[in-house]
């Protein structure tokens, strides 16, 4: 209905369908939103009267809280639904759940779901704006955006940078959103991890593949270290956590061999001593907590840009004379 007004369209399902300009629009819009969280009264009235449902079919603390802060700081009204307590556990389909919510006149759905493609599926079927807060191993667009904002904050640019995503790339929606976004903004992207967790098919996305983490460290300006998603693994992907750490873990000793300082990102939650050592996570080049801070600003920007208006009505108002 209001696709044409918003810089993003009706929904944010992933970064793959977005253009470079749309991604930059979100990052640039996030800048002034950072400052709102530093105010004494952390609130602006821009989404007053909008109702947003946070529909989480998978456990999440950081992302859900981050979205909630973003919504509240824009003055939206919010409801949280955790699937375990909802009628989904009674057998209701996703679309029926959403239609019932729509019947209560909502404006936006922020959804996390275990199935890849769930956000796009829902977006096509309901008139409310849909924001993907992670769907299976497909995409987690706001995480990709906040990672890019954090990189830009610290490196001053994205174009031309070498960014390597390390770890469990196979199961990672964060990796996919990062790859789509970073490539569009002109970065060079690589992935690195055990062959069982780094599918060869990723080459076709236009990324380099490293099989040795030492090589990745020699190459990269930025490392985005992913969590080993034990809950999504059947078994047999890695021999043991200790061995994973020995071969793939990012330690200070490994980083000291790099030709230059490497910016360290991690989308959280971290498994200290597995994919990242504490002295790296807490080290001088870690921007892991900056990512969390930027997450709120990026989500505010996305909600603001999607909230859109109705150009037809604006045109009608213009006819009445307005300067």
């Amino acid at each position, binding site marked *: 209905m209001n696709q044409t007004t918003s810089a993003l369209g009706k929904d944010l399902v992933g970064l793959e369908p977005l253009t470079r300009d749309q991604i930059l629009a979100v990052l640039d819009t996030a800048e002034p939103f950072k400052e709102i969280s530093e105010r*004494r*009264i952390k*609130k*602006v*009235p*821009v989404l007053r009267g909008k109702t947003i449902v946070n529909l989480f079919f998978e456990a999440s603390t950081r992302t859900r809280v981050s979205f909630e802060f973003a919504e509240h700081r824009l003055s939206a009204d919010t409801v949280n639904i955790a699937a375990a307590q909802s009628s989904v556990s009674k057998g209701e389909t996703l679309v029926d759940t959403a239609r019932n919510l729509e019947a209560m006149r909502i404006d936006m759905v922020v959804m996390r779901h275990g199935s890849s493609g769930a956000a796009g599926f829902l977006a096509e079927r309901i008139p409310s704006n849909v924001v993907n807060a992670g769907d299976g191993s497909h995409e987690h667009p706001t995480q990709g955006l906040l990672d890019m904002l954090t990189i830009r904050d610290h490196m001053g640019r994205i174009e031309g940078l070498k960014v390597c995503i390390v770890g469990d790339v196979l199961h990672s929606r964060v990796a996919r959103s990062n790859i789509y976004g970073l490539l569009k903004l002109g970065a060079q992207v690589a992935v690195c991890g055990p062959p069982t967790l780094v599918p060869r098919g990723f080459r076709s996305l236009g990324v380099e593949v490293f099989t040795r983490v030492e090589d990745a460290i020699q190459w990269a300006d930025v490392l985005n270290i992913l969590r080993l998603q034990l809950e999504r693994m059947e078994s047999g992907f890695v021999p043991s956590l200790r061995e994973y750490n020995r071969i793939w873990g990012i330690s200070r000793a490994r980083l000291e061999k790099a030709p230059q300082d490497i910016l360290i990102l991690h989308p959280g939650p971290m498994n200290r001593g597995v994919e990242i050592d504490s002295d790296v996570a807490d080290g001088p080049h870690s921007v892991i907590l900056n990512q969390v801070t930027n997450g709120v600003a990026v989500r505010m920007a996305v909600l603001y*840009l999607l909230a859109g208006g109705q150009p037809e009505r604006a045109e009608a*108002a213009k006819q009445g004379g307005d300067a």
Partner: protein
Amino acid sequence: MSAERIPVMDEPAVRRAVARMAREIVEKSGGTQRLAVMGIHRRGIQIAELLRAEGARVPAGSIDISLYRDDLEEIGPRPIVGGSQVPNSGIDGKTIVLVDDVQHTGRTARAAINELMDWGRPGRILLCVLVDRGGRELPIQPDIVGRHVEVLEVHQSVEVLVPEVDGRLGVDLVITHPEAV
């Protein structure tokens, strides 16, 4: 649609008006000690700078009211170019001079005042505009005005031009002639 521009104020006229406004601000606020000037994005910022250049370099800030507008539904989200900047010394207890280029409906001033109140507790707010064109929709009147300009509500508007954006300083009355339908 064609538009006709009639100059209302040239550069010397604007500078004279600004000088007088600066004096009025100091008179009304009883000195410059607790004074801060905040321009409303975007041409209000340049007018605020001109005012500061007239006398004491009082603390300055800027306000982008995009997030406080009451017409998001109609216009859709706009890029927030400026962001707001509070003067370094804060606004609590200060006399804040809100500066805009043109006062029309009063909605921009309303939004800016709301935003200021979310920032803190100013001791006093003065509203200062280069041009008052009338047409108020809210009961918010400026305290200090550079020039009153009579404008018909239909097909006429006032534009303040500043060097940073428009390449020159001045005020034009813009009359649009819609094509016959």
